[in-house]
């Protein structure tokens, strides 16, 4: 019986595997709670208290505080749950793309168009 081999890294890509899923559980659980409008409002009333309620660690809290998308991913966030946090901020996936690649949204959109 052979076990799966260690895989070579894909640049600029974090696979959401067991390691990330364990690390990010509290953060993702908080973001999953944002499916509910009442929870979104509770978060917006007091972000720090809401992060405490879900048990976020220091790195996760800082990444939430600073809206640091790459930081949220490094802290175990999964993009599908993070999208619900982005929704609260009024950001779409192109905004997220721009934030992660250091581009403006217009530059990011132009990059997508260039791949036609």
């Amino acid at each position, binding site marked *: 019986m052979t076990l799966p081999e260690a895989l070579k890294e894909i640049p600029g890509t974090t696979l959401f595997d067991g390691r990330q899923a364990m690390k990010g559980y509290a953060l993702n659980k908080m973001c999953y709670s944002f499916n509910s409008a009442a929870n979104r409002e509770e978060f917006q009333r007091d972000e720090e208290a809401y992060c405490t309620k879900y048990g976020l660690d220091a790195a996760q809290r800082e990444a939430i505080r600073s809206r640091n998308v790459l930081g949220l991913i490094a802290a175990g966030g999964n993009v*599908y749950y993070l999208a619900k946090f982005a929704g609260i901020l009024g950001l779409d996936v192109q905004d997220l793309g721009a934030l992660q690649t250091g581009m403006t949204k217009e530059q990011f959109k132009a990059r997508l168009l260039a791949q036609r």
Partner: protein
Amino acid sequence: MAQIIGSVTTSHVPAIGRAIARNLQADPYWKPFFDGFAPVHRWLREAKPDVVVIFYNDHGLNFFLDKMPTFAVGAAAEYRNADEGWGIPEVPPFKGEQKLAWHLIEQLIARDFDLTTCQEMVVDHALTLPMALLWPDHERSGWPVRIVPVCINTVQFPLPSAKRCYALGEAVGEAVRAWKSDERVLVMGTGGLSHQLDGERAGFINKDFDLQFMESLVHDPRWATQYSIHELVEKTGTQGVELLMWLAARAALGNGPVKRVHQNYHIPISNTASGLMLLEPAAR
């Protein structure tokens, strides 16, 4: 016996929901995408499916990381859409086809697929948007079909392999064709094509691969099963791996020849290379 009349595979980008809500179908950005569905609408009027078996992936509406099934089959009487947190309008509920659902569950488990079965399930944009694209009049006239959702995990790695998803689709197809009923069944697969939302590689698209993949579904449907999940992520992006749903849907058509009725491919819709294919068994 029931008959599989064809397969429709399409992207399911959330922005499509916003475009529908704002009536942007004729907007220059959206027109090349929405126009792609006109031939599918014409085909559906003739083909008149009764039931849809739809392969899709949940994005954190029904399933969270507390319990993450690899393959889940819905066996509910009704499926509702719900708030996903970023505000696209909800669609009316769908009627479930429970007899076929349990038939599939029995047949698949007999063939060693260890399924999760769900008698309650909320369905997200990956199911609702493709349905809305196929039946844009649903707000007025309701959904003309009953559904069986089949959810494949693409959230948490390890994901099931392309080979396994193909085998799942194949088994679903055989089970549908062995279902004692006169129903006309359409198979759908939603997601893809190449895109990546997360990381510094966000915005990655691979047109060459997508076109080769679409072509393979006509002539060499197992082509993509040569790749590992890791290779598929590398070639298509972390979300491009949703082509697994396309593979399962294509496999359900069986190993005989298929006819390509229609195909559309357009870059970009939001961050995604959008694809659409309508296939039917050639000996219809």
